[in-house]
């Protein structure tokens, strides 16, 4: 099982659900370039200007580790990265689990993605203003949390040691992507985990994914928000296990 984190997170965001699978599966967790403890110098603005660059990295991992029958679990933007990777080299993959997927965030003619361009510009502004505290001298600060020590490794303003420029580039690659065409080419069985009240990937978008992706089943969760694997790990585990049965 390969777990691919979403935008703004790193592999630690999987910590509440991985224990449920570690006995039955070989687990692979990683950080995308620019996130977590990745090598920031490997960032190439050209390559990572679209999601294809990230999908290539997923395939590189499959090749390097000589993986077969991968169950790919992708959160948010990683759902699309997984679809791109599996469409390109289906031989590596067995199943796809998409948590809060959205093939296109921007509204379009007859399509509700949930966002207008100005909303996204507004988000980038927020990201910039919330990175004001980020400075070149700030080491990857490790935050202690006495009451919950197992969570100690997260920063308070962001998960990652991400460089603001890289984060901005990832945000643009994510939010300006349009992968609606790619859904139809999926040849592996897949599961969509759809949260209620998810403003980033609203229910219509989950429904769109189900309709346009061959072999996709939709699971509507009670969990709210965009990160059910964090806010509702039990329900997430249950849904995944049912699908894998």
């Amino acid at each position, binding site marked *: 099982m390969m777990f691919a984190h979403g935008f703004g997170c790193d592999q630690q965001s999987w910590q509440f659900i991985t224990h449920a699978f570690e006995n039955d599966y070989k687990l692979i967790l990683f950080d995308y370039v620019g996130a977590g403890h990745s090598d920031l110098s490997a960032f190439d603005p050209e390559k990572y200007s679209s999601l294809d660059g990230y999908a290539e990295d997923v395939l590189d991992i499959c090749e390097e580790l000589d993986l077969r029958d991968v169950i790919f679990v992708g959160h948010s933007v990683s759902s699309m990265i997984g679809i791109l990777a599996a469409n390109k080299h289906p031989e590596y993959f067995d199943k796809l689990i998409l948590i809060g997927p959205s093939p296109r965030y921007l509204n379009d003619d007859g399509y509700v993605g949930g966002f207008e361009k100005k909303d996204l510009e507004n988000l980038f502004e927020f990201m910039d203003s919330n990175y004001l505290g980020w400075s070149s001298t700030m080491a990857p600060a490790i935050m202690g949390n006495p009451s*919950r020590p197992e969570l100690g490794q997260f920063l308070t*303003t962001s998960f990652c040691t991400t460089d603001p420029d890289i984060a901005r580039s990832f945000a643009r690659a994510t939010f300006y992507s349009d992968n609606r065409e790619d859904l139809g080419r999926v040849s592996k069985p897949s599961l969509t985990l759809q949260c209620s009240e998810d403003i980033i990937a609203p229910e219509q978008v989950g429904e769109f994914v189900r309709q346009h992706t061959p072999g996709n089943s939709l699971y509507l969760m009670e969990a709210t928000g965009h990160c059910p694997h964090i806010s509702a790990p039990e329900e997430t585990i249950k849904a995944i296990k049912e699908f894998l049965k």
Partner: protein
Amino acid sequence: MSHLPDHDLLASLLDPEVIYHNAPAGYLFTLPNGTIIAANKTLLGWLGYTEEELLHHKKLSDLLSKGGNIHYEMFFRPLITINGKIKELNYEIIRKDGSLFPVLLNGNGIYDKDEKLKAIALTITDITQRNLYEKELLKAKNEAKIEKERFEFLADSSPEMIWTINEAGELTYANHRMLQFFEVNAKELTIKTVFQRLHPQSRIKLLRYWFTNGHKGQGFTALIRLKNDHLIYEWFEVKAVFSHKDTKGLKWFGTCISHDEHINAIARKDDFINIASHELKTPVTVLQSYLQLIEVSEISDTVRSFVLKSLSTLKNLQFLISSLLNVTAINSGDLALQLSVFSINQLLATAAEQLQHTTSSHRLVLQLEKEELFVRADKERILRVLINLVTNALKYSPGADKVIIKCAYRAVRHDVCISICDFGVGIGEEDFKKIFERYYRVELQKSQPGLGLGLYITQNILNAHGSRLTVKSEKGRGSTFSFALPVTGNSAGR
């Protein structure tokens, strides 16, 4: 008057209810899903909502703009769930009337005994003023980035090498051309890489400039040789500017321009002159012999006058050829002097007489010491020096009517100082250094014939004698060229 705290006042201030509602910050409690369950009066005042409108009816996300909401879902909620707290998140809050104000959010998760998140406590600080300041900072940061990009674009478009060096002597910037020349990427290029490609002599030269000028805080220009990618040395001109400003990390800013073309062009001229002068010499000598034979033959007076004119012209030609041969000798470093002791008074008199024939506009005024002075020098070449200097003096004073040739004995140094003084156009400061370079000709004279070698030869002949040509000049007033030669013995008639 008592200095003890007023217990009643303190008690009223520390009343939890008062602290909560009247604090200079907004307090807000939400459920894990964001539903607002409590807000203090300060916050209600800022928002313009009543408790009834807000509590249980609104979620925190309802108070945020759409962009803020994405951030809230992607950062705020995962963070508070995983970390149990958020710190200094910057959002814009929407008031009831639709207007916005920037805030900083700090929050803690509140957990039940099973460590399950049951509520979130938040403080909200209005940062309208600070936000303006931060926007300015952000703007300045972006402007700096644009400026940097613009500089790099300009620098990278330049065919010259451009670099900066910091106080520690590290290369801090190199433009595209420089990276290309050294065939490395920006991270690999160090001073060491550069020095490895420098000719050993250039290395010493640069280091000397480096330390002496760095010490004085002055820039410099130097000609250096660098090995190109074919491992052949090419000439370059390095120009370095020393930065006195307290700019962090920048001490030297400089360029490096290929000078190979220029240096090679001079070398090509030298080669040409070397070959041409030797090739010209023999036929001219043969020509002279035949003309001399014709002159002593029985010929009519008319023909003789033609032959004499031819011989005189030929003499000019020979002078020109021997100038070129001198240059060749100077360049190859073997200007061998034919030393003899002779009277400088006589040489000057001879030169003046000869040269007087070449001009009808100027009077050559000879000012000699009464005493006859003897020098040990190459007579032919000193004569050439005098001819060069007087010819120049005549050429550069078209409006004047005299040139003074002065010879003065200086007892202190026991030498004789010879100066040629004209009242002509003079030399501008910008030309002062360059007039001694070969092939250099002052702008004014470019329309007139000449090779630009006279002063170069003169200076080199004098240098070979251990002497030096000096010049004093004022534009529009005239110039004086002087040199000195040591006097042999201490009295006349030796």
